[in-house]
């Protein structure tokens, strides 16, 4: 995973609340066995509506997406994060995210930024004016050319993973001994827990 420290560029002012992952990437795109090429299906239903922000050339290639409350709700499909990644989205700004989506985003080098609704409303205005937005993960700030400055927080582990492009699986595999110790005490105390399908 590529490290993410600072993103500067135009933002897509979507603004909608409860954007579910079916909207981000519909089910017909989930038949793939690859992570690639899903940008073509991203926001397919919205792209079909007149005047939508995704077909507006002003926002073509923008690395930031601004949305309403509860972004990424619904299905756990990581295809939503893969689709945003394939579109070139590096940062999503919203008042809140679904738990599963925000985890999927971070694992794909996409930063979910939580800001209060009034800050999001202001950033939507800035984005609609075609001005760039700067998101800095080191200082945990979002700034604009109009001198707006909003601070956000991200849990330290996720921040570390993004800043350094860490492979979580590799990190945890290095803790194999601790996991083995846990399993051994489980097997001794509650063997039925460890049987699973081997009955």
């Amino acid at each position, binding site marked *: 995973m590529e490290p993410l420290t600072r993103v500067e560029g135009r933002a897509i002012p979507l603004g909608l609340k409860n954007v579910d992952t079916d909207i981000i990437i519909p089910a017909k795109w989930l038949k793939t066995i690859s992570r690639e090429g899903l940008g073509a299906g991203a926001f397919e239903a919205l792209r079909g509506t007149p005047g939508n922000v995704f077909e507006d050339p002003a926002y073509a290639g923008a690395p930031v997406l601004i949305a309403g409350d509860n972004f990424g709700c*619904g299905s756990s*499909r990581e295809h939503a994060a893969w689709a945003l990644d394939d579109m070139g989205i590096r940062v999503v700004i919203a008042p809140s995210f679904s738990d599963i989506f925000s985890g999927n985003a971070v694992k794909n080098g996409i930063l979910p930024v939580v800001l209060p609704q009034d800050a999001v409303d202001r950033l939507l205005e800035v984005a609609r004016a075609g001005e760039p937005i700067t998101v800095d993960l080191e200082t945990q700030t979002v700034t604009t050319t109009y001198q707006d400055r909003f601070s956000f927080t991200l*849990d330290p582990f996720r921040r570390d993973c993004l800043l350094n492009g860490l492979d979580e699986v590799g990190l945890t595999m290095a803790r194999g001994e601790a996991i083995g110790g846990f399993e051994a005490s489980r097997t001794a105390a509650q063997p039925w827990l*460890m049987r699973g399908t081997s009955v």
Partner: protein
Amino acid sequence: MASRPRTLYEKIWDAHVVETRDDGTALIYIDRHLVHEVTSPQAFEALRLAGRPVRRPELTLAVPDHNLPTTPRVDGAGKPVAIADPESAAQLAALEDNAPAFGIRYIPATAKEQGIVHVVGPEQGFSLPGTTIVCGDSHTACHGGLGALAFGIGTSEVEHVLATQTLLLQQSKSMEVRVDGDLGPGVTAKDLIMHIIGTIGAAGGSGYVIEYRGAVFEAMSVEQRLTVCNMSIEAGARAGLIAPDDVTFAYLKGRPMAPQDAEWDAAVAYWRTLHSDDGAVFAKSVTIDAADIEPSVTWGTSPEDVVPIGGRVPDPQDFADESKRVAAQKSLDYMGLTAGTPMTQVPIENVFIGSCTNSRIEDLRAAAAVLKGRHKADNVRWAIVVPGSGLVKYQAEAEGLDKIFTDAGFEWREPGCSACLGMNPDKVPPGERCASTSNRNFVGRQGPGARTHLVSPAMAAAAAVAGRLADVRELQN
């Protein structure tokens, strides 16, 4: 020894902490992992590329469900029927190859045990109280009905669990949803959870694990509890839980993968400790009176858009904040509804009975009880029943329910996720409505342009008979 009173969630969490990092992130052990064809191929591929094995293959169970057609799987000669869509076929073949290659138990599409992961797990006794259960599917919360901490994960986490049998997690907060009293006639577990989501909102449980408490849940069967916990994710919660009790133990005893003999007794003794302590602190608490709940339907495109069947399509102007007004108007436009229309005047062209929310034997019995001796209305073009598993299907056939459904004009299908998400050929056509026992009424969920009204199985049956959304109580007298 005096210890701080803990919630059920905190007890299960504490029992699974392998270690805690300095930054507060915990390494949590995962007891049970369910895998299906849609969210796993990229995870297996990543393991293969990195040369990583599956750490504990016996703690993972694989079964295809999302993408499978629900038409017959074997032909007259007993041979498997090829899947027409090449992409679907390739995805199913990938799981069929990956599971044995990594030593994982695989239930094939033609086995009688095949079904929707969230129906199969409890049915096989693979899902157990007090365990951590994950699956690359958001409705994994379902298994909380057995008192398990169960939640959906993404594909990178599927890979993480396969490789390490753990996940790196931040602890959620505990939320209590208490419902006391008795549910009225015609009011089911589905109506209850829809009412709860309508009350707390689609993000009302965000950051929380919900524990459902009170007399209403205690009086429920395990299948009803699974329905309630299943939709916790539609309120934004990480998971939903109901404390295990004698009802749970009776349900699990003797299931193929449940503990046996002396281990069963030890397990039950442990499971009896799994309840929130007196004095345990919930970060958020919501109380609902069972008497306030009626058979319910959704009118919009979020599961929070719930009204009683006797209600009307709301007027967007009546919502307090601007973003809700905008969202409501967009929903009405998509749904083709006019504010003020009584819900019982909304015509229905399609009926879907199935999904991990409502495809178990009790659901099919409830729908069949309404349909017995009746027929779907002429304007209902397509009505299907998709049992949650092969075992549910055989049980229903043994009880003659299939005959009731087909006599009523329904198609009787093979198990799978089907029209809940419209990934296989079972889709609702653009612009048409569906009374659906599934869990999501999102834009395009049941097919591009499809309009979904979420209901209970009994209410879906009533809608089929009436040809419009209908109050099941009028058919139950």
